[in-house]
């Protein structure tokens, strides 16, 4: 009897662990039909790019019920998760892009933008704005808006916030850009004028990021340095509780001024609970078991969740240039344009996408200009995988019989991807020595101390092209390690920053893209694609929630 018990117990444990590790998808739910939720047309803006950027996949049954239950409901608490701890809940002092998943729910911008970074007055703290000349901006502010602590939002608050960013003691990441503002003048309580040092068309886009958020002057004075975890904005939710390493809880701002397109008051839910879950398996398990209402799905689990009828997924394209090869144009051997072209033509990005990113990402067909932004243009010629061409350029180069060079990288996925690049380049006789560091060290070694000619990294979604061009392609830019003077590109960047007409700006950035692509300054390989999963019987309004920065704005989401 005892022997039998031990054998049975052993077998049970082994079988259980094997069953758990198999993790089979639900075979009864393979019949999902991609469809677009009925009300998604109200979300999409008028351009094709925007409609491509957000696609909702759900079951046919859900589509029917979504049409019937289209009216938002009020109440309930939404539980979502994110994998990164906030570096700060104060948008002006934080330095992590992931912080926006938390602070975005508590703040408004002086000029907010839609998903393509086109300014949208209906969701901005400025009702309207004007440019009397290229070096003056005048903002007409909303009346009767208050911060969460009751402090009125007015011209004085705007002046305070801009000067706070410009103060070196604040250590704001937005400071460098905002130094373009020479002076802030209060005309009256609802009108404020910015006098600029130089023309600044990019500023309109920058106001939709952390620098354009408005913080309560009273709360900043009250909390001092610890304001970063006592945020007070004008946004739809107010901070209730922050548990470091655990969660950020927010409650509805009962006096919020924002309304949806039908005039209903925002937000719809009574509050939010953002759980900080760093492990991908745990995060998936939490969503799958209903402990979360909504969460980004780890790459490895996308197909599993797409097969589940009770969970719908919303796809967000262009979340960044998520696989990007940088060259140092001034460092041998990458100072040879033919070698850069040889490398560019020898890399098969689709193979890397399939092997490392589970096929979820998309080919970067418009360089650094991301899909779903006004500047996106995939008609500019670019090097595409072609081994014969790669060999031709290598033969024309200074090292026709091949060569060796170091390639820096960071992180598990990038290390594996770089090893694939290593394997692909070996096919044309180029030998890569992969050197792996943590992200900060690798970035510093490539851009600051310039220790290698080649770097596998990524670039976050930031649709304002001036910021991308100014930081990557300007001859003095930090992310241009070679810093070779290129008067044409520098001049185009200056023109782009000074031009307020969006059509003319787009033409300027197309010219920059043409030069950069033709001379292979960088190789943008893959655009990131994220999938957000949500319980479709419980959560609605998700099609509205992604902003220009691909971050969730949960004022638009409601619980059925």
């Amino acid at each position, binding site marked *: 009897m005892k022997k039998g018990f031990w054998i049975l117990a052993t077998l049970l444990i082994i079988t259980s662990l094997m069953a*758990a590790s198999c993790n089979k998808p639900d075979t009864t739910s393979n019949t999902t039909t991609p469809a677009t939720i009925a009300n998604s047309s109200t979300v999409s803006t008028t351009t094709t790019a925007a409609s491509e950027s957000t696609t909702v996949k759900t079951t046919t049954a859900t589509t029917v019920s979504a049409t019937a239950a289209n009216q938002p409901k009020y109440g309930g608490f939404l539980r979502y998760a994110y994998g990164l701890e906030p570096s700060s809940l104060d948008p002006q002092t934080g330095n992590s892009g992931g912080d926006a998943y938390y602070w975005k729910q508590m703040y408004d911008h002086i000029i907010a933008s839609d998903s393509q970074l086109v300014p949208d007055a209906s969701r901005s703290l400025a009702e309207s704005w004007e440019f009397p000349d290229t070096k003056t901006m005048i903002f007409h502010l909303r009346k009767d808006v208050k911060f969460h602590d009751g402090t009125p939002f007015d011209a004085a608050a705007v002046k305070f916030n801009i000067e706070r960013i410009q103060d070196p003691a604040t250590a704001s990441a937005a400071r460098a850009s905002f130094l373009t503002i020479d002076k802030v003048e209060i005309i009256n309580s609802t009108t404020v004028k910015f006098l600029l040092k130089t023309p600044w068309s990019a500023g309109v886009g920058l106001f939709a990021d952390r620098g354009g958020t408005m913080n309560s002057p009273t709360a900043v004075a009250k909390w001092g340095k*610890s304001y970063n975890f006592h945020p007070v904005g004008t946004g739809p939710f107010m901070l209730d509780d922050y548990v*470091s*390493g655990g969660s950020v809880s927010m409650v509805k701002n009962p006096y919020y001024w924002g309304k949806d397109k039908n005039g209903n008051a925002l937000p719809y839910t009574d509050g939010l609970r953002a759980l900080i*879950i760093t492990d991908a398996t745990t995060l998936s398990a939490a969503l799958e*078991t209903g402990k979360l209402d909504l969460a980004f799905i780890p790459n490895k689990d996308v197909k599993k969740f797409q097969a589940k009828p009770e969970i719908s997924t919303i796809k967000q394209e262009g979340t960044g240039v998520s696989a990007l090869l940088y060259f140092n144009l001034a460092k041998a051997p990458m100072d040879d344009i033919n070698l850069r072209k040889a490398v560019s033509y020898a890399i098969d990005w689709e193979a890397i996408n399939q092997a490392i990113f589970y096929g979820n990402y998309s080919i970067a067909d418009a360089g650094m200009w991301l899909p779903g932004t006004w500047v996106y243009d995939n008609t500019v010629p670019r090097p595409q995988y072609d081994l014969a061409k790669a060999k031709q350029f290598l033969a024309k180069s200074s090292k026709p019989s091949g060569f060796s060079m170091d390639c820096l990288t960071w992180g598990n996925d990038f290390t594996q991807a770089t090893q694939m690049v290593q394997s692909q380049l070996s096919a044309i006789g180029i030998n890569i020595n992969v050197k792996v560091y943590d992200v900060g060290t690798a970035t510093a070694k490539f851009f600051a101390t310039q220790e290698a000619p080649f770097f596998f990294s990524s670039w976050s979604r930031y649709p304002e092209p001036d910021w991308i061009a100014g930081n990557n392609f300007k001859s003095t830019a930090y992310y241009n390690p070679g810093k070779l003077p290129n008067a044409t590109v520098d001049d185009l960047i200056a023109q782009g920053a000074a031009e307020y007409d969006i059509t003319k700006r787009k033409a300027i950035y197309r010219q920059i893209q043409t030069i950069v692509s033709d001379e292979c300054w960088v190789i943008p390989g893959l655009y990131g694609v994220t999938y957000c999963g949500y319980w479709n019987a419980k959560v609605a309004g998700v099609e509205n929630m992604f902003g220009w920065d691909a971050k969730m704005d949960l004022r638009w989401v409601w619980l059925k």
Partner: protein
Amino acid sequence: MGSYIIRRLLQMIPVVILVTMMVFMLLHLTVDPIALLMGGGESLDPEQVAALRAEYGFDKPLIIQYFTWMGHTLTGDLGRSHKTQRPVIDELKDRLPVTLEIGLFSWLFSIIIAIPAGILSAVKRGSIADIAATVITVGGLAVPGFWLGTMLILLFAVQLRWLPPFGFVSVFSNPIEGLKTIALPVISLGVSAAALNMRQIRSSMLEVLVQDYVRTARAKGLKESRVIWLHALKNASLPVITLMGMQIGRLAGGAVVIENLFAIPGMGRLMVTSILASDFPVVQACVLITALMVLFSNLVTDIVYGYVDPRIRYS
């Protein structure tokens, strides 16, 4: 016994000083803290960097920084978190009890499993029970905690839906919910300790069970259970006590991985998030507390050892 404890406490002082120096120097010598704080520093100008350097005292010589830090630490002031601006001691007050609770229950779990299994395995040496226990033990030692934790989540949370996959509720505030939330982390953390303890108890018991005094006890007609639990186990427990004491450090280290896996807001997770955020004062405090925990557990082990085996305290 009193002089023995005082002697051991005095021996700890140079170790503590060495630990504090290592904690401080390791962080300050490896990289420029301002560069870490800025994540590359590209977004700030030199004026801002200089202001930050002065604000955090990084512009002073290293030795001055060390003594300043030590002086504050000795008075219970561990500084302020660069990230949250809260006193580090407040951060630890929230987090340390969570880690201690998980560690305590993991330790208890390992003992509850290891003692009966180890004794059974030794007494029934060569039986199916012994072989099965050995197989499980080897498995428990070989399997990393994070993998076992992942498997337990998939089995008990996702497949069976018995237990939550993440979070923490204290057993002392809500016993039922608490036990549910800590069950998986405790098992993940405690299995390897249980396996080690079991192996140690088995081999110690095997040594003791063939001793003359055990044979004498049996010859006197004592019941077998009395021979094992009273006569054999007490002598077999000496090496096990050492092992269990050493496991406090292992559990503190394991908590770093397990707390991140199960999203538990304990000190292990605080350490990881602080390292990622380059939050020096918090990292220093966490490493210091962990080192002190190990030293303290070694002290307690030595005291218990001395109590159980009089030869130790008089040597």
